[in-house]
């Protein structure tokens, strides 16, 4: 049986998080009552004209710098002409032949292996409005609030070979656009939308197969499922002797399948031409330098720095999944004056678990890096055990008290008075002759039981290391 290779390229529409629209002064805030955020320009009244939002340009440039692409000194806005009720002008303004960004790469990790995905281009364009087909007694409603929202369309080369790679790329891109603060990444609200170009070819072939473009992939899971379904579908067609028709397909998440929307023959002739209302966009060197100087440290750079702190690759990856997490980490170690390993393992352990339980982001954590440092400081200086730290953290999470006050209130301070600990250890040894004998006979398990009993007797407040040391010393006598 023939082996097939799947080839995938992604087109991602990232909504730029500017305050106003790309060609008008109307607000871009999500969720307003229909048509309340559509000004004269957005609804395309006779006589209105577009004016480019410089902030959208700056964000596109940030992206170009982050992926080390080429920022074109001169780029052109074109009109993409087609009729649709939610497209007020009858054309979409989009960069066509001359995009603002060309080239660049994004690194992904799949199964522990690193791979570089090349980008073709990233261009600025405006979003359309929304057609609402429910609730209007057989008619359609049009909401133009979204019309004119700035988008950056990010097009990759067909460099991915599996759904897993495509998802890894989409996630890396998603993390990056949020990292450099150009997009809020909210997939439910449509701020980050993926279309996938999928084709298959016999393994080893260097010719690309006929591709289908799958639209409407608004989650990473749908992206993965749709690509898997589509690749299988194409393989079945080819193995049955059929041919793939180049077409646009829609992913139906309810049925978990893709189906044809329109074939290439039915495709619009968009009649692109340069928009005469907008001059060519010129990026001057001063602007480029200003934006470059404002760029945050990127995930890759941070990751390398963290490896230098002695973190594992997994820890460094984990902490650089989002800029908020990395900033939390850096705030924490700064407040601690070190503690790189402790802070990393605690953030990726207890802290992340708490975020997940609450279903919130780092930025929404009720415990900030300063408060968290108050807690970890007490772990680092052995005032409390890591186990007690969990209890203190819970109390901090649910209240306003600081770590020290909670430790004091609840009497969680570790018993590090060695006289007191030695007395308790002696008691336990005296009360458990069998375990003592077993230990002395070489059964290590018996030792753990004794440690456990000491911890129980101290209600967890004993320093486990100290208990260990005392018990071993006493039992050796």
């Amino acid at each position: 049986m023939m082996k097939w290779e799947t080839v995938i390229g992604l087109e991602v529409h990232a909504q730029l998080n500017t305050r106003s629209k790309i060609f008008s002064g109307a607000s871009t805030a999500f969720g307003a009552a229909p048509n309340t955020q559509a000004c004269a320009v957005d609804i395309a009244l006779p006589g209105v004209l577009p004016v480019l939002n410089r902030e959208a340009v700056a964000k596109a440039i940030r992206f170009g710098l982050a992926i080390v692409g080429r920022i074109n000194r001169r780029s052109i806005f074109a009109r993409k002409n087609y009729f649709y009720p939610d497209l007020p002008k009858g054309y979409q303004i989009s960069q066509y032949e001359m995009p603002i960004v060309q080239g660049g790469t994004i690194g992904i990790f799949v199964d522990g292996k690193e791979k570089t995905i090349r980008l073709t281009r990233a261009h600025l364009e405006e979003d359309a409005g929304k057609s609402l087909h429910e609730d209007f007694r057989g008619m359609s409603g049009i909401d133009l609030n979204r019309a004119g929202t700035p988008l950056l369309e990010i097009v990759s080369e067909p460099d991915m070979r599996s759904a897993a790679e495509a998802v890894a790329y989409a996630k890396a891109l998603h993390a990056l656009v949020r990292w450099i603060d150009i997009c809020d990444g909210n997939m439910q609200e449509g701020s980050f939308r993926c279309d996938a170009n999928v084709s298959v070819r016999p393994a080893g072939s260097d010719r690309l197969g006929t591709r289908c473009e799958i639209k409407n992939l608004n989650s990473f899971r749908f992206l993965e499922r749709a690509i898997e379904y589509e690749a299988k579908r194409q393989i079945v067609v080819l193995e049955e002797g059929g041919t793939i028709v180049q077409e646009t397909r829609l992913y139906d998440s309810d049925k978990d399948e893709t189906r044809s929307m329109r074939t290439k023959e039915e495709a619009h002739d968009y009649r692109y031409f340069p928009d005469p209302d907008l001059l060519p966009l010129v990026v001057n060197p001063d602007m480029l330098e200003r934006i470059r100087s404002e760029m945050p440290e990127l995930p890759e750079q941070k990751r390398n720095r963290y490896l230098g702190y002695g973190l594992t690759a997994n820890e460094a990856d984990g902490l650089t999944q989002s800029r908020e997490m990395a900033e939390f980490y850096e705030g924490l170690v700064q407040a601690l004056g070190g503690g790189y390993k402790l802070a990393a393992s605690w953030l990726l352990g207890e802290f992340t678990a708490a975020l997940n339980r609450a279903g919130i982001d780092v930025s929404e954590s009720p415990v900030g890096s300063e408060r968290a440092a108050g807690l970890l400081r007490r772990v680092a200086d052995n005032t409390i055990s890591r186990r007690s730290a969990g209890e203190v953290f819970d109390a901090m999470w649910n209240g306003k008290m600081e770590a020290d006050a909670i430790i004091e209130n609840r009497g969680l301070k570790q018993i590090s008075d060695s006289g007191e600990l030695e007395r308790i250890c002696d008691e336990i040894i005296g009360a458990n002759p069998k375990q003592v004998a077993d230990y002395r006979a070489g059964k290590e398990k018996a030792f753990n039981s004794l440690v456990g009993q000491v911890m129980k007797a101290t209600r967890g407040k004993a320093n486990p290391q100290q208990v260990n040391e005392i018990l071993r010393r006493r039992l050796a006598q």
Partner: protein
Amino acid sequence: MHDLTLTQLSAEIAAKRASSVEVVTHFIKRINALNRKYNAYITVDEERSLAQARAADARIAAGAAAPLTGVPIAHKDIFCARGWRTTCGSKMLADFVAPYDAHVIERFNAAGAVIVGKTNMDEFAMGSSSETSHFGPVRNPWNLETVPGGSSGGSAAAVAARLAPAATGTDTGGSIRQPAALAGVSGIKPTYGVVSRYGMIAFASSLDQGGAFARTAEDLALLMNAMAGFDARDSTSLEREPEEYARELGRPLAGLRVGLPAEFFAEGVAPDVARAVEGAVAKFKAMGCEPIEVHLPNMALSVPVYYVLAPAEASSNLARYDGVRYGYRAGGYNDLIDMYKKTRAEGFGAEVKRRILIGTYVLSHGYYDAYYIQAQKVRRLIARDFRDAFTKCDVIMGPTSPTTAFRLGEKAGDPVQMYLSDIFTIAVNLAGLPGMSIPCGFDAKGLPVGLQIIGNYFSEAQMLNVAHHYQQATDWHTRAPSGIDL
């Protein structure tokens, strides 16, 4: 009162010898009486106009008058004016009331001028005769059986018939200069980018430019002072220091090099037109100007280039008239596509549809390079011709139109003949240069002839001075058609 020029009228009002209300009432009375004859206006709104006039009188009483405070100005119905029906001569917008002011309207309002009405025009400014209007053809005051030119024919006719002392217009391929010539008034189209296009309903964005009609060059300078200026809402608006457009009026012309393109004086120009234009050139020579022969070798290509580029842009600019949000929507449709088709089939007239079809075709896949790209290349050659010519001369002169006013319906069935009536004006738009037309005589039938003056970029003040000198030495511009009395 209606025989006064804008400048004179403005002085009367400023000196409180006439109130704005009196002046505006006078013109509205004339419009009400005479408009059925000329069909120069689409909309008159006496209440609105008088409210502005009263405000102007209050401003004058308060001693805060500007040069245009209180004077009535007619506006081509292509400029959006808040609260005014703004139709662009189309059924598509027959009931559209603009919710905002165009930049030009804002500027006139700020100056205290009064909107006396909205003038008739070719539908969406597509035409050279003002016959394609949904509101019926405009008649030329000099001969009611002839056209006043277009597309700003209503504005030209209104000024010619003394139904307004001045009017705004737009010029995409000659739509100010050609009707100025055919109706015997003065008109100016500034350098592209000098007057904001914001609120001026788009026909062909890279060519459209607002301008004005009046009876004298001096009046046009006053209008330019109000209209010109940077507007951040139009990305093609040029940010420049404000100009006083009357600053050169009266400066001697001696030594001025007048370029005469051989292509403007070739065959195809009606003999009476050629004679009048040559007479004007002789007059300039007598004033000390130096005639210089120049060449615009790609002139002949300007009409075909224009009829690729302008329809291409128009086909896209007019896509917004789809019946969805405002304007005309057909009844009795079955589905969305049917609604689009019926709305656009019923809402647009034949000439607009013809240009949308041409534009759609030239932008289509497989034809784009051969038509649109090629036309853009030739456009650059045409601009280069002018640049070369202006190394040898200061202004260029020639006929505005190859003929005087033609009969109503004469060219309506022959689009190519109609398109050729703009053969001398189109190249100026393609190059983005400023141009004027001023009266320079009459043909044997008593129809006015226009002299076209083309200046280098931003030389409006100089052009106005050239026209002013001519008007000081001649009286063509003072002649009025008969039949304009109540």
